[in-house]
């Protein structure tokens, strides 16, 4: 449902191609496709998807980003591959021949395979999403989706946020005290509204990681729809004005066609 976009943000530069939106690389030659730091060469992704066109697009896109992708077309083959080889993350379509995606994930979880799973689906009703997550999926993406969305979510699954019990978060010059609920930039206190604090905390837990507007809406505000206006941009804009120092590069950078990133050295 998150991908049911009423007013696709103006900056999201996509074109529709067989249910998948890809960013033609020639539009934006100045900015290479892999936005986050290159994944380690050993990162292995298992894609279980029966639609060969979508699968091909996804494989090409992810391999161009430096991932190693193993593709299986049926649920049964995907399950045996998932059980017998090690993968860092899996992308599983809900509707699969022989064995449906949710059963596959449940079986994996029963066999103690705890690799993060992103569920792909053509169904976008809220309860379908819930059932996908209940079965053991870690994230849910509805078709058609933007490649940037898929890449950002896989990145997020690969780099689980630092949810340890620490009470201080640090990102570049920013310091966040989770107990006192205060933020400082290079020692200078910054006055934030609760919603701005929440947004910044989310960003600081995921530094140098592309976060799409949908991810922010879902995780920070817990909303599963796309508003008609560029709400997220307005919130980010407000936050930027508070945390950025004039003359220095912006901490929160807009990633054309994808979303935002808290860039720290």
């Amino acid at each position, binding site marked *: *449902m998150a*991908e*049911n*976009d*009423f*007013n*696709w943000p*103006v900056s*999201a*530069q*996509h*074109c*529709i191609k067989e249910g998948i939106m890809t960013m033609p690389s020639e*539009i934006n030659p100045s900015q290479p496709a892999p936005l986050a730091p290159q994944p380690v060469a050993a990162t292995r992704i298992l894609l279980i998807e029966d639609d060969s066109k979508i699968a091909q697009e996804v494989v090409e896109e992810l391999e161009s980003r430096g991932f190693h992708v193993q593709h299986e077309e049926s649920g049964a083959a995907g399950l045996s591959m998932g059980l017998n080889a090690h993968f860092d993350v899996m992308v599983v379509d809900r509707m699969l021949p022989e064995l449906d995606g949710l059963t596959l994930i449940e079986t994996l979880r029963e066999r103690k395979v705890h690799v993060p799973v992103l569920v792909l689906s053509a169904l*976008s*009703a*809220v*309860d379908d999403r*819930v059932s996908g997550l209940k079965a053991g999926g870690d994230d849910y993406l509805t078709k058609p989706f933007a490649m940037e969305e898929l890449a950002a979510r896989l990145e997020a699954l690969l780099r689980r946020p630092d949810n340890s019990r620490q009470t201080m978060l640090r990102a570049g010059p920013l310091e966040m005290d989770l107990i006192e609920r205060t933020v400082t930039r290079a020692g200078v206190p910054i006055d934030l509204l609760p*919603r701005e604090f929440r947004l910044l905390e989310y960003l600081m837990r995921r530094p140098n990681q592309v976060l799409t507007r949908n991810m922010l809406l879902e995780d920070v*505000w817990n*909303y*599963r*729809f796309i*508003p*008609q*206006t560029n*709400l997220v941009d*307005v*919130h980010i*804009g*407000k936050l930027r004005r508070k945390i950025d120092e004039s003359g220095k590069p912006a901490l929160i950078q807009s990633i054309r066609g994808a979303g935002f990133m808290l860039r720290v050295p």
Partner: protein
Amino acid sequence: MFRNELFRTATFRLTLAVVAAMIGSAALQFFFGYSQASVFEARRSDMLLLREASILQRETPQELEQQVRDRATDDLRILLNVTTLFDSQQHYIVGDLHNWPADLVADGHVHVITPEATGGGSSTVLRMVAVKVPGERYLVLGRSRHMRTELRLMMRHSMLVSIVPTVLFALMTGIVLSHRALSRVKDMHEAIDRIMEGDLHERLPAGKQNDDLQRLAGSVNRMLDRLEQLLDEIRDVGNDIAHDLRTPLARVRARLDRALNADHSAEALRNVISHTIDDLDQSFAIITALLRIGEIENGRRRAGFGTVDLESLVADIIDLYEPIAETKGIALSHVTGDDPPIHVLGDRDLLIEVLANLVDNAIKFTPEGGRVEIRTRMNDGCAMLQIADTGIGIPAGERRAVTGRFYRSDKSRHIPGSGLGLSLVSAILALHHARLDILQSRVHDSLPGATMNIVFPPSGVVQPGN
């Protein structure tokens, strides 16, 4: 074919059932009538036999002998079929029965004697009585059951005479009635055939009788009215979708066409591509919004329903939209009465979407310096949620139409959007059985403002403690 259909009509089958019932009841009538009559006849025979016996007992032996001889030949044989005199050793003296029946006991009571017991003296079952008469003799009197047989014949005959014409009459009536029903059904079939061929204005023939068939035809006609209306709506929506998709696509085509023949600098081309993508995104947004509405309208999913606190819902939406309102210089606030917190039954994610759409619209259509208020209160058991703005308002004549798909007031043509936001809101509210009224916020100002009034019925309000 037609005759075959006639016999399969409901009316004709009913007729057959009635005929069967008539035959059955006549048979029962015959059975009970006959058995009553035969009991009566048996009693009368016994009385007759005993009375005759007591009269003949008083005669002298010579007279009795004479009487018996006469009776064997005279007309009274119709009443008493056997009159015979036996001696004390039960040997035949005079009369029409030559052997003493085996089962007969001379005790003055009536006995039923089978033909075999008489040793061939009688061909039918007889009721007999044997009495002692003067001269140590026995007088045997007997009466056959021929009366009963006659009675049965007579009754059977009269029954057949009466039942055959009755049944024939009922069948004829049934055929005539079935024929009439069939011709009405045939008319309806023809009307339905015309409707199936695509003539959606055709209706089933309306007759004068107010019977079952007519009421059914009335219901079908009302259903057809509704279907025709829905079909018209779908056709309109189809046209609107085509139109709204065509506009951005036409722009894309024109722009690409121009780019082909004009400046080929990278910057110019990038600009063209970027605008093209915006237009395609708009088409895409329309399609996804339509799919989403279809999903909500067809899904009727209430699985995500739970108790939703309106106050926290409003607080969340204000949290989400405050920055954007602030940017536009609009005051966004929550106005609540003295009511205790209001809870409604609903899907929180969908209700947030409703509020987001309405607040989004309110901010979009309110000029700088204006106000957008979200109000919650209870009214007569109903929960009310209002989004009031000080914007351009919606003219009274357009208020019904705005919730239809793709409707956009002429005044709002320049403001971007899929034109489907309010349809989505309507679909979600329909799922919640809630109503949406569109009102005017103010009377005297230059801008009337719009107030979206959402009313949750009492059944959708969760009472505290429940």
